């Protein structure tokens, strides 16, 4: 009996085999072929979901499995719009229904807990083990909780949110802003470089100011920055002077901006120049690659993942590609757009590698809009290519919205910011 099987079970197996879900069985018979056509992706954000969609779009014969514990992924892009009252959480929630149903991605709602790069397996929290031919790791960021004395994950969930992974953190910061009195003081404390979304804290200050100007005009925003300068600085400062004169103050690291300590009970932070109190305090801690990247030995001493910029394959573990905020991508910023661009390059490269062909040299792009006011948008663009020193910005390309851009230009960029969100989210999750 143990060597025999009923016709009914046999048919079941055959059907599931054709559907591709029994490839593990085939793998034991002819591992090379079965494994080669199977890609597992860890993380369903801008990088991982884009890679999943484009692998299936460019070669539907590849079995693509996406591992993501969250049923709804709230995007960091446009979460500042929620803080400013311009979007709802529902507007920034992306799901995996279309990837699963229309594009044939096998989406598993589970958490990856281990990678064995030699056996080419991924272990999930539920104990399930997935085999892969190639693995894409797109884990985003993790916070260095111990970098600021007194700060902790627990404090971020109660009094001092980071709101730098969207979701319940965004809701908490939004509620605090809505509960704050007119004349209140908001502290925003961004980290040093490198970190996710370099213009993010400054768009955040802008859109919180947009809300406060209308509802609580006596309030102030103070940015206590670890850095000496920041992304799109001239454009942001000009926008603040134009729309929110006197409301936003920015202090650089050496002039009392760098915080070393926080006190949740006193609602204060300590800088080299003294103690600053806030009614709402947003701490954006220093960052490193997402946890699974550390656990799998994909990070170097910097806390980020070194990759071969041609294919985004890890230089530490062959067969594993790391994309998005977690990887070291030369001149590219850590942004959702960059992650999706890298996801597409990794997808196209993996297809070529499966075919035994040389991957085409990569070309990458970043485009980030920041909203300062409803009719006031600015942007940074970059086109990137491979040089002997790694990924560089193509000389003479890209750059910022011109400082002398007129009102029509800024209004068009504000509209394009909205169009950007619609298309990038549709292109990845739609």
């Amino acid at each position, binding site marked *: 009996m143990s060597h*025999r*099987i*009923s*016709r009914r079970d*046999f048919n079941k*197996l*055959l059907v599931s*085999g*054709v559907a*591709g879900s*029994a490839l593990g069985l*085939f793998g034991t*018979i*002819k591992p090379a*072929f079965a494994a080669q*056509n199977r890609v597992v992706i860890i993380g369903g954000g801008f990088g991982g979901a884009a890679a999943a969609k484009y692998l299936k*779009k*460019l*070669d*539907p*014969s590849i079995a693509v499995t996406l591992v993501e514990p969250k049923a709804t992924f709230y995007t960091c892009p446009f979460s500042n719009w929620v803080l400013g009252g311009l979007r709802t959480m529902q507007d920034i929630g992306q799901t995996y229904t279309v990837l699963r149903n229309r594009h044939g991605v096998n989406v598993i709602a589970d958490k990856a807990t281990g990678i064995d790069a030699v056996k080419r397996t991924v272990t999930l929290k539920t104990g399930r083990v997935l085999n892969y031919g190639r693995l894409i790791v797109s884990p985003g960021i993790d916070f260095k909780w111990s970098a600021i004395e007194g700060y902790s994950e627990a404090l971020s969930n109660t009094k001092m949110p980071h709101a730098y992974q969207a979701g319940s953190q965004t809701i908490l910061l939004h509620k605090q802003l809505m509960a704050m009195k007119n004349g209140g003081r908001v502290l925003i404390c961004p980290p040093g470089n490198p970190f996710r979304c370099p213009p993010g804290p400054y768009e955040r200050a802008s859109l919180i100011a947009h809300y406060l100007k209308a509802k609580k005009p006596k309030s102030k925003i103070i940015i206590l920055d670890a850095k000496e300068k920041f992304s799109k600085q001239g454009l942001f400062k000009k926008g603040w002077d134009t729309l929110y004169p006197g409301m936003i103050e920015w202090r650089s690291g050496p002039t009392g901006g760098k915080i070393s300590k926080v006190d949740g009970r006193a609602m204060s932070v300590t800088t080299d120049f003294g103690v600053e109190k806030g009614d709402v305090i947003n701490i954006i801690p220093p960052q490193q690659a997402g946890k699974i990247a550390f656990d799998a030995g994909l990070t170097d001493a910097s806390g980020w993942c070194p990759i071969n910029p041609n294919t985004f394959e890890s230089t530490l573990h062959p067969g594993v590609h790391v994309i998005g905020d977690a990887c070291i991508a030369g001149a590219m910023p850590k942004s959702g*757009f960059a992650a*999706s*661009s890298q996801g*597409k*390059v990794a997808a*196209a490269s993996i*297809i*070529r590698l499966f075919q035994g062909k040389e991957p*085409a*040299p*990569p*070309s990458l*792009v970043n*485009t980030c809009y920041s909203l300062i006011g409803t009719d006031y948008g600015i942007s940074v*663009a*970059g*086109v990137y*290519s491979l040089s002997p020193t790694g990924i560089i910005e*193509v000389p*003479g*390309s*890209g*750059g910022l*919205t011109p400082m002398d*851009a007129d009102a029509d230009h800024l209004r*068009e*960029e504000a*509209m*394009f910011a*909205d*169009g*950007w*969100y*619609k*298309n*990038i989210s*549709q*292109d990845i999750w*739609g």
Partner: protein
Amino acid sequence: MQVSIRSLLTACFVSFALLGAGADASAAANPASKTAEANPRGQILSLSCASCHGTDGKSVGVIPSFYGKTPEYLETALKDFKSGKRYSTVMGRHAKGYSDEEITLIAQYFGTVWQNNK
């Protein structure tokens, strides 16, 4: 009715071979892979454009669509953005990132990917 493990494995092999063959056929018939096969460098250069302009250039927002445009139209538009002959807020900054040869490859990719969808 029962069958042996051996016939099961044979059947699995057959079904797997069929799966493989079917998959190969669908990959070849797939418009995106067909375009990529002919123009792999053009594909790599073009994929990022979709983030702002929509998948295959089919925009769902205020940013212009270019789905359905000919390679000639796209090449002229990109070169005019690059030279500044055509006004833009951000396209000029992007177009300056590509050589004229690369612009031709991008125009060929997006100018043909929709024709393969017909």
